């Protein structure tokens, strides 16, 4: 029944801006390291408590790796006017993801920005930028 308080404290604590989760972001992600991954969008899971997109990307050694990136909840995306189908139309196509990486070193992160091949992009920003 407590509401704004914790989201508010999370966003105040963030220097990167709009990374949000159903847990404290810094408990899972290294907020200081933003990475960019280019690859092929293979899957868009519109699930709670976070949507998840999957990307096949080539490692430095040429091996295909499957990265997964979570982001805000589906109910949030609905309320900022983004539907799964808008993003899912990029499946099978090259995309770029900007994210912060999980601290455990797995191929996992919190998505900050997704850009499709045609230049369409969605980026989490501070609400104050509006």
């Amino acid at each position: 029944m407590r509401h704004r308080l914790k989201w508010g404290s999370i966003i105040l604590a963030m220097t990167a801006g709009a990374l949000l989760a159903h847990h404290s972001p810094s408990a899972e992600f290294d907020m200081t390291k933003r990475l960019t991954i280019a690859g092929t969008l293979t899957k868009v899971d519109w699930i709670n408590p976070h949507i998840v997109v999957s990307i096949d990307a080539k490692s430095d050694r040429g091996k295909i790796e499957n990265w997964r990136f979570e982001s805000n909840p589906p109910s949030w995306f609905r309320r900022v006017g983004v539907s799964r189908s808008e993003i899912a139309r990029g499946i099978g196509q090259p995309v770029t993801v900007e994210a912060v990486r999980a601290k455990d070193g797995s191929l996992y992160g919190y998505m900050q920005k997704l850009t499709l091949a045609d230049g369409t992009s969605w980026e989490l920003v501070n609400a104050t930028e509006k």
Partner: protein
Amino acid sequence: MRYGLLFVFLTALMLAQAPKTIHPDLSGIWSYGIDLPPAAIKKQINGKVTIEGVKHDAVATIRPVAGASPFTATPSYKPELRAKAKDLLDHESKTDQVFYCGKPGIPRIGPPRKIVQTPNEMIFLYEDISGDPYRIIPTDGRSHRANADPTYYGDSVAHWEGNVLVVDARNFVEDTWFGEDGYFHSDAMRVTERFWKDGANLIYQVTVDDPKVLTAPWTMAPRVVKPSAEPLEESPRCVEADSKRLTNNDHHGQR
């Protein structure tokens, strides 16, 4: 004899014509009660950039309300149980089943997203990541169900006190919390929910009583729930995938 019959007839006529008590109509779609990230999204489509945030005027808020009961910030646990409540709070991301897509129960789920009011019952519909529960609450004066098994959303009956709908919910399973900060309860928990209208808004205030664990009933801050035009949508399934990567027990701030 003749006058007696006339008296009976006139009495019956008066009763039939007496105005029925008109209760406020709480029916409608109400704003999403669960807090959402305050972030906005910056979209670039065909070179056009827009920034869209969650409309906070369409989100339930907590603020002082005339007519609300006095409330306190936290419940008062019995001294011997305070350590347990603190331990649950300190390890919330491990101990809170809502973190793992579990049902929040009442009152943690908050006010309903949609209310359908009929002469003899209230139908509450909810959106929640654990599923989209409903409650059908008799208002015809009947008692709680006998021999019902305990459930996450309990067994509820309601009545009107003036313009206030008072819902009496009980018979809960023990594994929910009544607040996100480790507020555990026993099988004796009773939840009293009060609903009334304040202009176009719906006011929702809850009192939790559990004499097995609390020193006194706990009344929460009232919630102001705004009318909404957003239709209810089926909540996508919930798959918890973060817990194995968490490096500490920080709070999750979900609800």
